[in-house]
């Protein structure tokens, strides 16, 4: 299994540009998440999904959009990029069944700089 795969790894955006961070997982997890991590800080939840066709806002959703058309994919869209969105973005996934332990598996991260 590849686990959670994110692309791109690095990206520089100009203010006002848009882009999509791709995320896919091959573990058949129901739950998927997008987090951002600012320097020296913990992770903040942007959006999450409990299954295909279902998404909901996390702690810091402003400036982002997501979709979940399949179990495997959970892209994150940045519209009108702002310098405040400079961060490292992590996609993650987990089982929904608590009996399976519910550890959350993270991707390797996408480093985004908005200039």
């Amino acid at each position: 299994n590849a686990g959670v795969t994110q692309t791109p790894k690095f990206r520089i955006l100009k203010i006002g540009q848009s882009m999509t961070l791709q995320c896919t997982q091959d573990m058949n997890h129901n739950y998927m998440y997008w987090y951002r991590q600012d320097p020296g800080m913990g992770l903040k939840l942007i959006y999450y999904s409990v299954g295909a066709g279902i998404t909901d806002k996390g702690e810091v959703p402003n400036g982002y959009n997501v979709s979940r058309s399949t179990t495997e994919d959970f892209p994150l869209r940045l519209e009108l990029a702002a310098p405040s969105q400079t961060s490292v973005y992590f996609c993650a996934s987990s089982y929904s069944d608590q009996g399976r332990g519910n550890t959350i598996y993270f991707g390797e991260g996408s480093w985004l700089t908005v200039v």
Partner: protein
Amino acid sequence: GESVGLHLPTLSVQEGDNSIINCAYSNSASDYFIWYKQESGKGPQFIIDIRSNMDKRQGQRVTVLLNKTVKHLSLQIAATQPGDSAVYFCAERIDTGFQKLVFGTGTRLLVSP
């Protein structure tokens, strides 16, 4: 409120020593506590977790202790190795219909040979 914090931002130890990383939490409704290791340039990696109805759980070279009375969580690493150098995050899981994780800011562990 919800907050998970760490007492020490950086911990420096010698190779072979035991390391203890501490964490405080504030939400009594949390059902799971999880420790993650994050190496430079990588995503967080699950180390060990503990349910709220347990006091102690052991893994390979790691032990997590949970003291619900004072809302304190610790990660003990035995015989610390240079490869253990990383940032360690504690997180509490709050089950509000989905598994919401609240992360601490992290402790950097530096292991000297």
